[in-house]
Every structure is written in C-alpha cells, then in structure tokens.
C-alpha cells in the first residue's frame, strides 16, 4: 500500500512536470488519489470492520476502521471532482483561445511589456 502511494505520487509529479495541460490534470488526479490513500493508510487499515454501529447496539464495541480519515477522504473525493471539472473546463477554454496545449507557449500571452 505504501509503495502504491509512492508510485501514485511519483506518477502525479511526473505528469505535472510535463508541458501538456491535459497531462497536468491527469497528474493532479494521481496526486489527489495518492493523498487520499495516504490519509486512509495513516488511519490504519482494518479489514471487514466498517465503522458502522450494528443495528442492535448503540456502541461500537469491536475493533473498527477509523471513521475520521474516511470522512476526510469522502469530502476530498467530492471536492477533487469539483476541482477536476473546473480544471478540465479551464484547459478546454484556454485551448480554444490560444490554440495550444503547450504551457510554454501560453506563457507568452501576457508577456508583451516584459523584456522577455
């Protein structure tokens, strides 16, 4: 699991370092997933013991999976969806306007008054 997170981080960062904006978004997704799994893992993973109180009891007595990271991740997943949607649209719009996917060329769009 830890190795998997490492791989996700590595892949995410590699993709962000690319010049293509589509790859940037995919990289962001990887990073997001990696972070989610990291939080999940840090809460210690437990098999087959969801944090749900049995219907006939009012307290969790047995060992159970940590609910706090789960709640955190749940919100993170939904938020990252919003982020991705926005990013995708931004990329699409930017592409429409400047007709390039290359971030280096986009840089030149607001560079009129600089020496570069």
């Amino acid at each position, binding site marked *: 699991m830890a190795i998997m997170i490492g791989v996700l981080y590595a892949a995410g960062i590699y993709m962000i370092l690319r010049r293509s904006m589509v790859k940037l978004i995919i990289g962001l997704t990887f990073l997001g997933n990696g972070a989610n799994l990291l939080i999940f893992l840090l809460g210690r993973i437990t098999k087959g013991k*969801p944090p*749900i*109180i049995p*219907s006939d009891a009012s307290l969790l007595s047995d060992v159970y999976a940590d609910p706090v990271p789960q709640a955190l991740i*749940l*919100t993170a997943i*939904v938020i990252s*969806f*919003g982020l991705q*949607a926005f990013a995708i*649209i931004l990329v699409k719009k930017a592409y429409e306007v400047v007709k390039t996917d290359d971030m280096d060329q986009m840089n030149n769009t607001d560079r009129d008054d600089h020496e570069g």
Partner: protein
Amino acid sequence: MKSIILKTGSDYLLPLLIMFSIFILLRGHYLPGGGFVGGLIASIAFVLHFFANSLENTKNIIRIHPGLLIPVGLVFALFSAIIPLFLDQAVMTAQWMHEPLPVIGMVGTALLFDIGVYLVVLGVTLTIIFTISETM
C-alpha cells in the same frame, strides 16, 4: 450512442436509480450511504438518461435548470444549521423528532442537512455536465 436497448432501458432505469439514490440518502445515517453518494448516484442516473436519449429529453424530465438545485440545497443545509438557533441552542445542534415517521425513519435536522447536500451535489454535477455538453 443511439442504441434502442439503452434508450428503452434508461427510461426505466432513471426512476429506479433515483429511487435508489433516495434510499441511499435516507439510510445514510445508519448504513453506508448519505447525501454525497445519493446525489452522485442520482446525477449518474440523469447522465445515463442523457447519453441514451438527448439533452433536451433529459432536460424536459428535470424541467428546472439543475443550477437551481444548488441554491435550494444550500438553503436546506443552512436552514438545518439555523433551526437550533430558534431553540436557544448552538448552531448545528441536531434536532430530532421524538417518534419515527413511517418509511423514512427517524427525522431530524441532520437528515435535512443531508438532503441539502444531496441537492447541491446533484445540482453541481448536472450543471457541469450539461453545460459542457451544451457548449461542445
């Protein structure tokens, strides 16, 4: 994507999925589920319908602009947060009815809040996806 089977299927699937999403929403307090998942399932239902048919059809079924769901949902959630204020309690203190309602079960402000979440998630997802497909 105009497959007859999918088209026919989606007509039946839509109400089923929405029922399912509401079921998920309501049982969220006791079993896995809740507003987020419920809202997402509902939006998937609509998106499926939209794939099978056309955007107009789907929009006709919803009738209102999905964007409207967002403020409505926010108001629901906010309302549930404010209710305790009228009862001299801190913001967001959950209030519960004393007797469970049939079918729905225990009703309280937490449920109201979850409905708000449900509506917002549904509204957001549909707004995003509909606007995208409209402008493409």
